[in-house]
């Protein structure tokens, strides 16, 4: 098992190697479907025997699908805590699953764009990731996978309530579509509170990088649909797309306005962030996120070449504590040791970066 995870981490991944330049404000799109088997208790209620039974049945069905035929299958209780943390940091499993006991696991495809969790809150949590803003593509991919699974698994489904889920907040489509958005200018301009309120009123939710209760380090926000019953998947995708596009427009306007009202402020922040990343020796994970966020903004504004965006997006993941420990090969690092190793890794990466040219104008993307 550990070998498979190491292979997975070193493989090229959708999120770390294919950053989208079409819509730089959106780092990644994700759609997940919650599904349950008709004749079994939900994972939270099921005893170990039933959980194992469900795991075996779902695993077999998932491994038979085209998307996951050559995927890596893992049982959570057989994974080292550090590997679990790395998978959480890569958004491949949830924190809830990483803390689960017997009968919980995940199957992940090689480029890590598809992951299916078994016995998390629901029997199945199917997830498809795409870089950039690609909601429709993500929906098409997950719809195909879900239909393949339904060929062999008897889903809990009611004509009136749709897909039946452990939590009533997910019944109906069982679908949550979300986008990870980088909104530094809205944060600097102090407009995020307004955006959060508006988004809530439209039936959408704003969360931090790692979901419910997580913070907004690096000006990263997850925006997703709140409701799942009474609206079709395609309509949810359309509505979400409109809301996301309008947030992208607001962010771009905020950037233009910041540059117009105080032209030196953004380049100053970006230049300082670049300096610390290139020369710092102690960097916490939260500081790294905020610095990388500013340099990413620098790429969007044309101060750095476009190709660097992919590298920065990879560093957002590699600067997380689990990844730093995993890279070092040492299990029991304390946070001070990690902060030094993180700074070393960032220095090495930034040594290869082109020196910024600040003459470029406003991000017009």
């Amino acid at each position: 098992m550990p070998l498979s995870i190491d292979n997975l981490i070193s493989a090229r991944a959708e999120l770390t190697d294919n950053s989208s330049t079409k819509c730089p404000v959106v780092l990644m799109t994700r759609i997940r479907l919650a599904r349950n088997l008709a004749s079994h208790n939900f994972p939270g209620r099921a005893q170990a025997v039933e959980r194992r039974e469900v795991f075996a049945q779902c695993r077999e069905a998932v491994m038979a699908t085209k998307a996951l035929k050559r995927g890596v299958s893992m049982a959570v209780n057989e994974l080292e805590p550090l590997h679990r943390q790395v998978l959480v940091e890569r958004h491949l499993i949830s924190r809830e699953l990483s803390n689960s006991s017997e009968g919980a696991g995940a199957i992940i495809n090689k480029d890590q764009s598809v992951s299916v969790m078994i016995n998390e809150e629901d029997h199945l949590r199917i997830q498809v990731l795409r870089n950039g803003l690609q909601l429709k593509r993500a929906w098409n991919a997950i719809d195909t996978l879900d239909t393949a699974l339904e060929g062999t698994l008897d889903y809990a489904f009611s004509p009136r309530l749709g897909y039946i889920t452990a939590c009533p907040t997910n019944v109906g489509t069982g679908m949550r579509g979300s986008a990870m958005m980088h909104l530094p200018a809205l944060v600097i301009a102090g407009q995020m509170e307004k955006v959060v309120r508006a988004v809530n009123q439209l039936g959408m939710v704003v969360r931090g990088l790692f979901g419910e209760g997580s913070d907004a380090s690096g000006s990263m926000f997850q925006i997703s649909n709140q409701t799942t019953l009474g609206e079709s998947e395609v309509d949810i995708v359309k509505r979400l797309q409109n809301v996301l596009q309008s947030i992208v427009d607001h962010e771009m306007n905020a950037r233009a306005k910041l540059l117009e009202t105080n032209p030196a402020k953004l380049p100053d922040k970006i230049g300082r962030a670049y300096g610390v990343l290139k020369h710092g020796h102690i960097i916490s994970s939260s500081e790294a996120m905020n610095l990388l966020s500013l340099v990413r903004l620098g790429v969007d504004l044309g101060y750095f070449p476009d190709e660097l965006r992919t590298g920065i997006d990879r560093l957002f993941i590699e600067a997380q504590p689990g990844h730093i420990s995993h890279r070092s090969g040492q299990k029991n690092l304390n946070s001070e040791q990690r902060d030094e190793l993180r700074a070393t890794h960032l220095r090495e990466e930034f040594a290869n970066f082109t020196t910024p040219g600040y003459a470029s104008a406003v991000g017009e993307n």
Partner: protein
Amino acid sequence: MNHKVHKVDLCESCAQAKGVTDPSGFSLADLLLKASLNPEPDTVTGLRCEQCGFTPEEFKKTGRFGCPQCYETFTDIVSPMLDNMHKGTVHVGKVPERALLRKQLHDRLHNLETSLSEAIKSERYEDAAKFRDEIVQVREEAGLAPTPTS
């Protein structure tokens, strides 16, 4: 802005202090759950899901149900809650056609088998033969091997 320096440290506490995260947005679903459950306990005491043994009290504690059957058992609690929580009250999205078709065929097969054994018991052999033929047909449709009938 306005020639003032704005510090942007987005650790959790700073973000909250700056209003970057909105706690009400995070727990809206939980609030709705609690609000719709509050008047319930007295009227539903003693109710228990036959399938998994779940009670409304346990649901109130965890916010999760025990099994798919709970949605039928606790329909009086579920319905108003879903009304508050979602955009509509009826599913209008994807339907798992193949899984539903399989279920229909299995249910039909089960009914035919019951009818067959009743017909044999009451010596209605003509009916029995009819049910047997239908069973073969349904099993074929469901992709199951034909059962030996003798």
